[in-house]
């Protein structure tokens, strides 16, 4: 250790590794019991949550370590001959350590999804279990063999789930479209125009955004009920509520638009474009990454909204979205023991559109634009 600055990073790394090792041990202990202790408080969900947090922690540690190791690698005076000979040993070690850490993190982050997918294919038992592939108590008791199949998916689409899925899908698509338009117009206006109330407006929205959305839940429900958009008609009501506050999400997009030089706008306006044409033909093609980001975040929002959706839709199953519907299956112990694996299958089906969307649109993030077309 040549540098005192590395000490905090290394300490954090050691703590992180110890904690992660402990978590991994507990995880593996489920399937290959190495040490028996009371499992009463250690459900699968708790383990997954713990591992998620550990993964995040380890990610931060890895970043710090990477930075400090990289700095160390650069402190060595570069000899032209040594440069030609390739990376120095320190840089090679730092690369290896970083890659190992990244692999561990990937495993930790993907483990919960892996577990959910595996359990979604498990036909028997259908309840929540603490094992994935093999019941450690199978040797003791008869009739506890695990079977895999597609039964969960069949049951899923036989029930109300398709209706919930459709509801959520429609809400997500409409919200994505409307919210994107509102956010982009809002961000462009705040970025390009200067008017008296601009700064007070931005500050007001920033402060307002700090209050939790739950505060307005009751009054919103009351208003929606009075207008007739709750209960069975909850879908338009939900769309209205999600879309209504979308203007406040201008911050990231506005920051991006600020980096696009104003002289491009001016050149386009002199060339004969209206403000709308400037936004559509010049700014948005340059801002593809941020447009994709806005569309994706707007699309993903409604899929996971549980509290407000449940409150507004109440007890009319036709109006539920997937979050509310799936939760129903876990609401009582009998429900859990019957429907847990179906719940997992539902979770997988819900994740599919988002994953496809991400995979298709990922390449747009990589586009490098603006580069050099405007001086300075």
């Amino acid at each position, binding site marked *: 250790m040549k540098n005192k600055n590395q000490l905090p990073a290394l300490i954090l790394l050691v703590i992180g590794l110890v904690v992660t090792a402990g978590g991994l041990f507990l995880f593996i202990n489920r399937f290959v019991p190495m040490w028996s202790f009371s499992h009463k408080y250690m459900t699968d969900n708790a383990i997954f949550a713990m591992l998620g947090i550990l993964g995040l922690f380890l990610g931060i540690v890895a970043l710090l370590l990477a930075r400090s190791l990289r700095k160390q690698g650069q402190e060595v005076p570069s000899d032209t001959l040594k440069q030609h000979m390739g990376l120095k040993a320190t840089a090679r070690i730092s690369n290896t350590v970083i890659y190992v850490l990244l692999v561990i993190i990937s495993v930790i982050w993907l483990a919960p999804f892996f577990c959910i997918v595996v359990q979604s294919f498990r036909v028997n038992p259908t309840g929540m279990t603490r094992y994935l592939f093999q019941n450690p108590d199978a040797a003791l008791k008869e009739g506890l063999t695990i079977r895999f199949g597609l039964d969960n998916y069949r049951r899923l689409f036989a029930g109300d789930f398709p209706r919930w899925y459709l509801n959520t899908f429609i809400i997500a698509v409409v919200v994505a479209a409307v919210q994107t338009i509102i956010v982009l117009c809002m961000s462009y206006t705040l970025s390009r125009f200067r008017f008296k109330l601009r700064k007070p407006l931005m500050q007001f929205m920033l402060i307002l955004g700090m209050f939790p959305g739950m505060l307005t839940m009751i009054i919103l429900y009351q208003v929606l009920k009075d207008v007739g958009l709750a209960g069975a008609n909850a879908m338009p009501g939900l769309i209205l509520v999600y879309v209504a506050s979308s203007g406040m999400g201008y911050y990231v997009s506005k920051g991006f638009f600020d980096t696009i*030089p104003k*002289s*491009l706008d*001016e*050149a*386009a*306006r*002199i*060339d*004969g*474009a*209206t403000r709308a*044409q400037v936004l559509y*033909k*010049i700014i948005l*093609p*340059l801002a593809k990454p941020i447009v994709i980001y806005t569309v994706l975040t707007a699309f993903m929002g409604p899929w996971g909204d549980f509290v407000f959706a449940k409150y507004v839709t109440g007890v009319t199953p036709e109006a539920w979205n997937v979050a509310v519907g799936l939760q129903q299956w876990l609401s009582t112990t009998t429900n859990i023991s019957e429907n847990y694996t179906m719940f997992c299958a539902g979770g997988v089906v819900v994740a599919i559109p988002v994953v496809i969307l991400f995979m298709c649109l990922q390449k747009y993030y990589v586009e490098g*634009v*603006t*580069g*050099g*077309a*405007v*001086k*300075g």
Partner: protein
Amino acid sequence: MASVKLTNVKKVYDNNVVAVHDFNLDIKDKEFVVFVGPSGCGKSTTLRMVAGLEEISGGTVEIDGEVVNDLQPKDRNIAMVFQNYALYPHMSVYDNIAFSLRLQKMPEDVIYSKVTNAAEILGITEYLMRKPRALSGGQRQRVAIGRAMVRDSKVFLMDEPLSNLDAKLRNQMRAEIILLRQKLNTTFIYVTHDQTEAMTLGDRIVIMKDGFIQQVGTPAEVFEMPTNLFVAEFIGAPKMNIVKTDLVREGNRYFVTPCGAKIEVTGEKGGLLNEKNVKGGPVLLGVRPEHMKLAFERGENTMSARLEVNEMMGSELHLHVYTKDGARWIVRVPTIDLTQEQRRSLVNGAQVYITFEGKVMHFFDPETEKNLIY
């Protein structure tokens, strides 16, 4: 017809900062007018007000007799070239130039002929399919000019287009702009902070400082007859030598007495002084470095000075000297006029004698800084 008339144009910003005070100018059709001045003098602001990119706080701007204060930039029939090119990065050079034509819904074949024509004039035909990031600075600037050219607009506005280019390229582009002007034959308004560009390009120059117009005139007028001290010092490089001295009147003749020498005011200026009945007294005397002469021996109208810095410019030397009264002078001496021995003697600290002829002097009032004659 594309005349531009600015009447009492004023620009005040929100925090009550006045950027342009009472700007009055009549630009004739097909005239090349240059706004020149130091940074922050309001020249770009005025240009942008003509373009419609800035709100006009007071006064009117007329293009071809029509008041355009409330018209959008696209309705004013103008074209503009920006300092930082402002090319659309995601479009090819062809699409950049064709953008405005496509907005006007012109047929594609017309667009094709216009764009290729402009590209040929500017020498960028082989770059038509490239994106701006694959071009050099000079090429990008030509594309920007091409984009403005194809619009066939009434007024061509240029906001410091050569500022981002290196010195050699700047000289080259300057010549190209002069050729372009001859080809296009339309009204130009050109903004720059470089007085060389102003002098070489403009039919008329508008010199600005702190939002006020200092002088409007042809390059010859502002060079030979500056109306105030600022214009005199701004135009011409190196800048004019300004020295506090006394103007002595002896009957019909005028003399100046800088640092021990006594030089009579001759030529046209002497006559004009008489005409205006200028009284003697303290004045600010201005003599351009190229009008100064170097002598190697004392004379009646020479000043004794010490050489401080000797700048070798190639065909001439720029000598920075200071006289006994602390005044600093710059003298331009063509190297061809000096013998080898004389050249060698011009070292730091050397004693030299400087003088100037009677007809090259400018006189400015020490308080108002206005030219006493013009």
